[in-house]
């Protein structure tokens, strides 16, 4: 009875993890602009990985005694994911990527002093390089 319950918990964790990872990846294709796409992998996929790892933690703890590595991996994933999301957002702001027109709020970081390329500067001819 207890065995079936533990297996149920493991199965639930694995399915939830897979579902969250899938939804996060779906967000990457479905959302409209870079800043919105950032939400999928930074939150949803991290939780997906976390769920899968906790499922693995329970499974291997039952097989051969307490295993703690998975828990450490989960904690490290949750500590590092926000940092990489922050760096991605920072570089997007630095490149002044255009947000979706529905986005409210107009941060100074996105106001450009001058257009990136005037017509004279723009590449001419049929050079393959930008």
């Amino acid at each position, binding site marked *: 009875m207890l065995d079936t319950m533990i297996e149920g918990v493991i199965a639930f964790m694995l399915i939830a993890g897979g579902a*969250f990872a899938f*939804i*996060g990846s*779906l*967000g990457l294709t*479905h*959302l*409209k*602009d870079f*800043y*919105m796409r*950032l*939400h*999928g992998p*930074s*939150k*949803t996929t*991290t*939780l997906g990985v976390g769920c899968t790892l906790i499922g693995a933690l329970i499974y291997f703890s039952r097989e051969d005694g307490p*295993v*703690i*590595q998975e828990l*450490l991996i989960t904690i490290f994933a*949750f*500590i590092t*994911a*926000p*940092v990489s*999301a*922050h760096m991605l*957002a*920072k570089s*997007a*702001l630095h490149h002044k990527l255009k*947000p*979706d027109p*529905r*986005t*409210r*709020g*107009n*941060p100074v*970081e*996105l106001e450009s002093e001058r257009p990136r390329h005037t017509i004279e500067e723009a590449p001419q001819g049929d050079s393959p390089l930008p």
Partner: protein
Amino acid sequence: MIPPTRWLPMPVLSMLLLVVWLLLQHSMALGQWILGGVLAILIPVVCRPFWERQPTIKRPMKLIGYFFRVLGDIVVANIQVSKLILDPRGQMRPAFVEYPLTLKENFPITILASTITMTPGTVSAHLRLDGRTLLVHALDVGDINALIDEIHQRYERPLLEIFES
């Protein structure tokens, strides 16, 4: 707290390194203790110049409470974001929000920024150089002021109490 000395500049970090080393090796053998101990002393001494002054944790119990609150919020926030992504109508109200910080020290601000990214449908995008404003991108927000208020009440207030009060 253990006071820092010349050869043990960051005692908490050293302890943490030793514990993580032993857990990762999954062994309590004497050799692992020695190797872990050497690393735990060496690594803080070498990377000492790159570190900021470590903040003091004034209320450790509150920190544990904060940890579990954030853990619960991560699950809730993920279900919200999943709903938004799967919603076929795709009615999102994205916004850039300038969040005025009350926290002053760098470490608490880092924790707050990470929490904001992990939890309520928001990603912290940029910390202005003056360290007073955090630029936050939200996926779906109705009332910007309500969002700022929620972050302040739910996350920044406890962090203030833990680190700076």
